[in-house]
């Protein structure tokens, strides 16, 4: 474990990517999220926008950038649905912020840690979604925690392939 201070460690381990990756990766994630349900039917056990938010938040180690990435992905996801815009936005904003904050403190190079963190953040995102929908807005929503657990597990499986793939695009000093 590094003995550097938090700020110094963040500066040392911050990752940088080509601009094209910052543009294309979220776009492809949103397109896949919108297109794949046409193929897999009701088994939407993945959340690509969440994974991209978590990945870039942890890689950049900047809570503000993680927050902004989360709000963009969440709002675009909301905009594709017919629900109120902002529900996914809030949940992914919080997730992006937390992922970046955690990324400063722990070693996110480790695949196991990243996978476990993704599962926890996926469940947290679902919990925030339900909280906003039912408690804050008072809207009727039938909910299945089994689906959310399945989604978290699916995300964990995708992470094992997606994160190493995205790691290849980082700019090496």
């Amino acid at each position, binding site marked *: 474990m590094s003995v550097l201070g938090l700020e110094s460690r963040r500066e040392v381990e911050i990752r940088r990517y080509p601009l094209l990756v910052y543009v294309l990766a979220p*776009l*492809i994630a*949103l*397109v896949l*999220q*919108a*297109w*794949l*349900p*046409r193929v897999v*039917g*009701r088994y*939407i056990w993945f959340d690509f*926008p969440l994974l991209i938010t978590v990945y870039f938040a942890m890689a950049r180690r900047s*809570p*503000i950038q993680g*927050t*902004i990435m989360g*709000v963009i992905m969440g*709002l*675009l*996801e*909301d*905009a*594709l*649905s*017919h*629900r*109120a*815009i*902002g*529900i*996914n*936005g*809030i949940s992914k*904003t*919080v997730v992006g*912020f937390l992922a970046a*904050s955690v990324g400063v403190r722990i070693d996110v190079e480790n695949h196991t840690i990243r996978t476990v963190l993704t599962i926890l953040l996926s469940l947290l995102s679902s919990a925030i*979604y339900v909280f*906003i929908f039912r408690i*804050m*807005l*008072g*809207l*009727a*929503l*039938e*909910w*299945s925690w089994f*689906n959310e657990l399945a989604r978290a597990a699916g995300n964990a499986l995708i992470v094992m392939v997606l994160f190493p793939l995205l790691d290849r695009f980082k700019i090496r000093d």
Partner: protein
Amino acid sequence: MEPFFSRYRNILVLFVILLAQIVGLAVQVRRTTDGRGILDSNDGPGVRLIRFWAESLLAPPERSIHYTKIGLLTLWQNYLDLHSVRQQNLDLQRTIDRLRLEQASLLEDARQGQRLQAVLDFQQKYIYTTIPAQAIGSSGSDQSRVFYIDKGSNDGIKPDMAVITADGIVGKTRDVFQHTAQVLEVNDQTAGAGVILETTRIRGILRGNGAGLLEIVGIMSDQRIKPGEKILTAGGDMIFPRGLPVGEVQKVIPDPDRDSYILVQVKPAAQLARLDEVLVVTSTQPRFSDQQQQDIAASEALKGSDVGTMKEQQKASQIMAERLPGLTDPNLPVVQQPDPTQPDATPKPVTPTRALPPLHADRFSPRAAAASLPVGPGSQPSTRPAAGSSPNAIRPAGNSTTKRMAPATAPATGRN
């Protein structure tokens, strides 16, 4: 103050962004008198703008992916996988010919029905104009069962138009953009449609539940509702024309929220999870579309050509009947002669009033035998030739006394 902002910069940014989104949510949701929240069905201009941005950003790549998939499938189906296509074409051509004739008569009935409806000032909604569309994307969430089609306002799509497939209803259009439109599926929790059970004629409201299953609510407990009963649209919701297939009853369970009410779980007729091509009902006016008009004309032309062929065949039969004397019996009375002007007159067996005289009569010919003579011991055989018999008639050799033919009643063979 500067150290405060720089120290808590991250938290402050998070707080501001969250606050802005919460305010945005508060604008979109309003409370009812009983404290429940309701999402405005009509988006405000700001919300609509965000949806427009998202659609503009994601629709082109989705469309590209979809059309690439279609292109590859077309390449495979139209150029590579052509096994037994020729035989299928022949079978289909026969089916088309048969269906055109059937359709002509059915459309004639439909036209008559419409005229009668107009007379009675009673009009039902019929589907007459639809636009085919491809499903190119979805919301990506199982909490929002919507999908996008590749047709929009430029193609004549408007909000609240029914979306169907050949199997059954799918949903209705919601947000319509220039080149795409959002379709709310009937199994979404916020969707609804008026339905009627085909046999029992019980009406209810179709809606989706959290698991994406269809159920009918608002039905009093009724023992007559059985699994397998067909469900149709009732037509009272001003979106779906009546009579469209919805699905069939899968299970009947008590409504947990209301006593003496039941929930009818429905198996949808359309494959809602796997939709590729759908039809948007753009007009329910009682009129025939151009395509149907063309079909009617084609059917009538087909019928006309068939009638012409039959007339030619009948005319040829008449000519043949006139030229072939064997087909008519000159010995028949006029009243029994077939009418040549009636082409469909079927030839009937005629019983002649008298037997025809034979050209070469012999003893077997009618009236060739003499009256019966008593045959007994010592009686002489008749050597007198029968009246009308030929001198060259062959006489049986040997004893002719033992066999004598009775006058035969010749069967009528004047016409075959």
